[in-house]
């Protein structure tokens, strides 16, 4: 695994919201095909780190590199805006609240970004979108409006929508936290299939320790804006070094 190229490289990342210093120096590398689970208490900065990777939040300080595009934090200049857009074309993101576009059908949701980015003819893009809907188990719903789907179905559409841009890395920001317990399974199994079938590079913020144990190559425990502990699930889940990590795991397991 270690010989594979680095897809995401985070160096010296800091993020403040006003006086609130949320991320206090994070370094991280994610290699192609790797699944990294990020976990920790709410407010530990884990979601913020994820949102800094594709500049949904602008890093205050530090460097983000995705698929060879290397960008500094700090002020967003006109030139940097264009570079951010280029970087984002390599990153897919799945949100806690799904954020599907309610003014479009399921199929339109999946097709809109590739169409706008001119990733092929409309027929090609439609075919790929239908394949992706099939992959997430929703090939029977292309003409439906998102609002008529359950939360689990919406989140699976959101995954297909992100995959449609053929990203190098997928970011999952608490993808099952807004779901009823009985609906998390369908989303997690789709995510698992991305890892096992597609060897997708994934950064997943989640408290689903079952998923982490089964799918993750690496787990990183965030505490007060830093990575306190990091390692393969087998080591972290059963033998965490730090008392904070152990306390947190005891609470969620």
């Amino acid at each position, binding site marked *: 695994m270690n010989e594979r190229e680095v897809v995401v490289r985070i160096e010296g990342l800091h993020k403040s919201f006003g006086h609130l210093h949320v991320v206090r120096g994070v370094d991280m590398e994610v290699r192609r095909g790797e699944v990294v689970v990020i976990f920790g208490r709410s407010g530990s900065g884990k979601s913020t780190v994820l949102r800094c990777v594709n500049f949904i939040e602008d890093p205050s300080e530090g460097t983000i590199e995705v698929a060879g595009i290397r960008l500094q934090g700090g002020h967003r200049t006109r030139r940097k805006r264009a570079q951010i857009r280029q970087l984002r074309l390599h990153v897919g993101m799945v949100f806690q609240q799904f*954020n599907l576009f309610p*003014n479009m059908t399921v199929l339109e949701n999946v097709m809109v970004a590739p169409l706008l980015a001119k990733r092929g003819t409309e027929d090609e893009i439609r075919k790929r979108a239908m394949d992706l809907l099939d992959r997430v188990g929703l090939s029977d719903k292309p003409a439906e*409006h998102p609002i008529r789907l359950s939360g689990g179905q919406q989140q699976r559409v959101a995954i297909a929508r*992100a995959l449609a841009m053929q990203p190098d890395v997928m970011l999952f920001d608490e993808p099952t936290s807004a779901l009823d317990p009985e609906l998390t399974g369908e989303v997690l199994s789709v995510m698992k299939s991305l890892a096992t079938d597609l060897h997708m590079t994934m950064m997943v913020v989640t408290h689903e320790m079952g998923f982490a144990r089964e799918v993750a190559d690496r787990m990183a425990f965030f505490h007060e804006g830093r990575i306190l502990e990091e390692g393969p699930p087998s080591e972290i889940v059963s033998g965490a070094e730090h008392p904070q990590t152990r306390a947190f795991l005891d609470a969620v397991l």
Partner: protein
Amino acid sequence: MDTPGPSQEPGLLERLELASARVPFRYKVATVWVAIFIVLGFFGAAAKFDLGWIRDKIGFIAGGLQYTLLIALGGIVLAVVLATIGALARIGRHPIAYGIAGFYVSFFRGTPLIVQMFLIYLALPQIGRNLAVEYAWLPDGFNDALILDAAVAGTLALGLNYGAYLTEIFRAGVQSVAGGQGEAADALGMTYGQKMRRVVLPQAFRVIIPPTGNEFIAMLKDTALISFLGATVANAEIFRRSQLVGKADFKNLEAYLTAALLYWGLTILFSYFQSRLEARIGRGYDRAAFAKQLPPGHGAQTTAAARAEVGAVPPPRPPADPSRLDGRTEGPA
């Protein structure tokens, strides 16, 4: 006073009350309206209301309808264009655009519409004349270039004035679109223009339509102010025409009442169109209505999301009527 015991027959008042309870509310309201018109008719007759005169002159007064409508349509189109630019400028936070839009909104909301009309109709020509005198290089005829027809000046003033109010309505509409929508568009690599056109504006549109309809209806009525600019008979709108004939025949009551009824009819007509349009646009978006249709197990999630969003933007719409729901269960068009 003896109170009726359980065995007693209900008294007259109680029987009336019970009979009244069986009459639907809207019938009672309709009766009140009819009564109002009867009373008004009585007063009209007592005041020697001249229906014959109205029959003679209504054709002339109603001939102003086309100008009233044309002015209002021109005004609302101009207002919508200005408001779209203004709202994007207020959202984009580019200092120059933001500053200009801020000045525009502040001035045109902060001064009376009638003053703006006179500024455009009577003050602009003076600027043109003075500039032409001061700068000889200006083309010939420039001194007359800023002399506008009363209807044109009035339409401009209406458009500018209502555009300022609509700017704020449009801005609020765009900002009411949930933040996650913009983030999702960003994350998919859309440009700012793509995000606005494909994601934000279509959703904002739904919020913007009802108040824009209200502004249009208000503007229909404000077209009457143009009569103060002294429009000629040839292109006079409703109110100016009623002024002209009412004054000539000393039939002010009949003339102005005719004008009032014409405006009233117009606003009722456009309110009806507006409610139809709102019902159409609401289709496919109404989260609360959709959530109700989902099986109970699936409901909780969606309803919570719906409440969050509906709470952020109280939809200024009448409550959903059952026929609309039926239409939706057939699935998206």
